[in-house]
């Protein structure tokens, strides 16, 4: 049941990335390029994707607080860290640099594997390597 739920949620997520256009790095960069406001060619779509996502997701997260277990069984596991520390800020800033260069973040990069091209495979491979590299450093 949990496997099916994960498959369905992943599919809905991936379809949402396709519908919203966020699977397209060009469109994401069209949002991040705020200088385009001056030429009236800025694309604010990404802000609406986030807004739409938040409006729908928030009631689920509020409701989940009062639930002892998940509907498919097991606990509801939420991050317990509260401290705003250096890794959070530096990690976020670093991620933004890569995102601002390529217009790809992890979700769209994986979803873009639906059109397997050298560029996408290379980005995903490098992303996995980056994750592994950080774990290696963090363990020391």
């Amino acid at each position, binding site marked *: 049941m949990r496997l099916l739920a994960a498959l369905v949620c992943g599919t809905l997520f991936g379809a949402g990335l396709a519908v919203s256009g966020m699977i397209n790095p060009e469109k994401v960069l069209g949002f991040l390029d*705020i200088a385009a406001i001056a030429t009236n060619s800025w694309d604010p779509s990404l802000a609406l994707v986030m*807004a739409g996502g938040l409006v729908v997701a*928030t009631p689920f997260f509020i*409701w989940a607080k009062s639930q002892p277990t998940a509907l498919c069984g097991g606990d509801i596991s939420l991050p317990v860290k509260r401290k705003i520390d250096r890794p959070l*800020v530096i990690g976020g800033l670093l991620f933004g640099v890569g995102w601002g260069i390529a217009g*790809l973040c992890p979700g769209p990069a994986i979803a873009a594997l639906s059109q397997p091209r050298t560029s996408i495979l290379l980005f995903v491979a490098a992303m996995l390597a980056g994750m592994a590299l950080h774990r290696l450093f963090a363990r020391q």
Partner: protein
Amino acid sequence: MENFTPISALTGGAMIGLAAGLYLILNGRIAGISGIVGNLATGTTRQKLERLAFVVGLVAGPLIFTLVAGVAPAITITTSLPVLALAGLVVGYGTSMGSGCTSGHGICGLARFSPRSVVATLAFIGSGLATTFFMRHVLGV
């Protein structure tokens, strides 16, 4: 603003929010893609399979979109391969260090009013805006 697509952005965003909400109440997990992908090899076999099922869905979603819409979603990449590899490396390193990405912090984290996620989201949107500006208007690539 000829590239602005408000209807499809809101619709797709709502689908992403629904996916994140359902994953939380059904499986009790955060739909953070960097966490799901980064932990494909950690935990019990069941946990690994569950993450893998989500990833398979993530790839299948756009394929189903293609079947329904009759046309594949546009994916335009103009970044050169070496730069793309560097960007991927930084995205992987940064999301692992910062414990999340656009989905984990930007959608799930903000949806549960997590102060850590507010800070992370401001950090990556801020540096994303600055980086794209630098790339396009200073370096001119």
